[in-house]
């Protein structure tokens, strides 16, 4: 039986009616229409669907939408302060060429955001540990780590 839920997605209250077997990921991409969050493996291995729920990063494919009722959900669409202003991380990813095919990028951006919120100046090992649940098959990660280090420096100089 479908259930009505209300979530606060990127600061905005959104009401949807969903089947209980619908994942948060499918609901975000389908009913809500936010397709920035990607569906990679759909079993919690790849991290492409990483979103931040009530302050914690998780795999949207492994959460039921009905569980997200009342929750604050942050997706990649919410990173930009305004349409013409990129988030520091997005800007750093572009400058460093940290995306190739780009499919893993939304999940990695959200994971990196969470990482930098908890640790403003992460070491290389801490960045690797923080991103160990996000798989990129194009870049070899080096440019992603460069971009995150650069964004961390920039955020420390001029906090967002």
């Amino acid at each position, binding site marked *: 039986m479908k259930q009505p839920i209300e979530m606060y997605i990127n600061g905005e209250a959104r009401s949807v009616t969903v089947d209980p*077997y*619908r994942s948060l990921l*499918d609901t975000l991409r389908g009913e809500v229409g936010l397709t920035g969050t990607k569906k990679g493996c759909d079993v919690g291995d790849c991290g492409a669907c990483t979103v931040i729920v009530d302050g914690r990063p998780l795999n949207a494919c*492994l*959460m*039921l939408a009905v*569980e997200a009722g009342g929750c604050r959900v942050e997706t990649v669409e919410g990173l930009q302060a305004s349409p013409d202003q990129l988030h520091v991380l997005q800007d750093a990813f572009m400058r460093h060429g940290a995306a190739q095919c780009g499919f893993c990028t939304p999940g990695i951006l959200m994971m990196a955001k969470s990482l930098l919120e908890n640790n403003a100046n992460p070491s290389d090992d801490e960045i690797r540990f923080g991103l*160990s*649940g996000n798989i990129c098959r194009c870049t070899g990660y080096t440019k992603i780590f460069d971009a995150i280090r650069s964004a961390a420096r920039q955020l420390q100089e001029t906090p967002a």
Partner: protein
Amino acid sequence: MRRFEYHEPASLAEASELLLCLGEGAFVFAGGTDLLVEIRERLRRVHHIVNIKRIPGLDELMISAEGGIWFGALVTAGRIERSSEIARLYPNLHDAVRNLGSIQVRNRATVVGNICRASPSADTIPPLVADSAEIEIFGPGGTRRTALAEFFTGPGRTTLSRGEIATGIRVPPPAEGSGRVYLKHGRRKAMELATVGVAVSLNRSRGTCSDISIALGAVGPTVLRAPKAEAMLRGAVLSPEMISAAANQAMAECTPISNVRSSADYRRAMVGVLTRRAVTRALEATA
């Protein structure tokens, strides 16, 4: 995803009754990181999900040097990982949760769920077995407690019967002069299932090893103790030679299989290496 009916009981009694009434296709849902994958990959026929997240009291986490640990069925691996008290008093459990899945998975996955899944390679089980943890179970007949070491009956199988729900884990307080270690061996550092996991908890008093338990993961149908290896070290002043001999004994006591992750021979050899290392490090930790 395959369709299922969804239930949100408000109490343990209601959850237990639901599980009894709904029968074989009904499953307890807490973190969901195993169950939802099993539904998608059609490894389990699930007709009803009984979400226990609305039941009050199951998200408690209590930790102290005097009282040990109590954590409820809804406590995630991430919460255990972020507890500095657990990192200090139970570094073995801390290391086990820190190497389980990814940060995203740990923010959802519960430790009690990892236990009830009863995988022989589950990271959280060896340190808890080595520390003589107990599991608390609510059921139609009331509440029962059992030693975690006696909870498992085979791969994926436990003593839980229909209508029973594991509600939490109690770990005794760490004894004065005790050391505890969990070592995980895999092919990579993250997002990995243990090829072999070895937990050692020991107490030292007046230079001798007054008590020790060795728990071996992924080398038998359930997590195993190595009682003969333990007996060789209990009551003794530990030397490197004795530790090596006990590690060899642990190799003889385990019963690994060959599968996609490793051959049985390799697993057995790693039990020797990791047991020697874990006993040595646990001993160092008592200093």
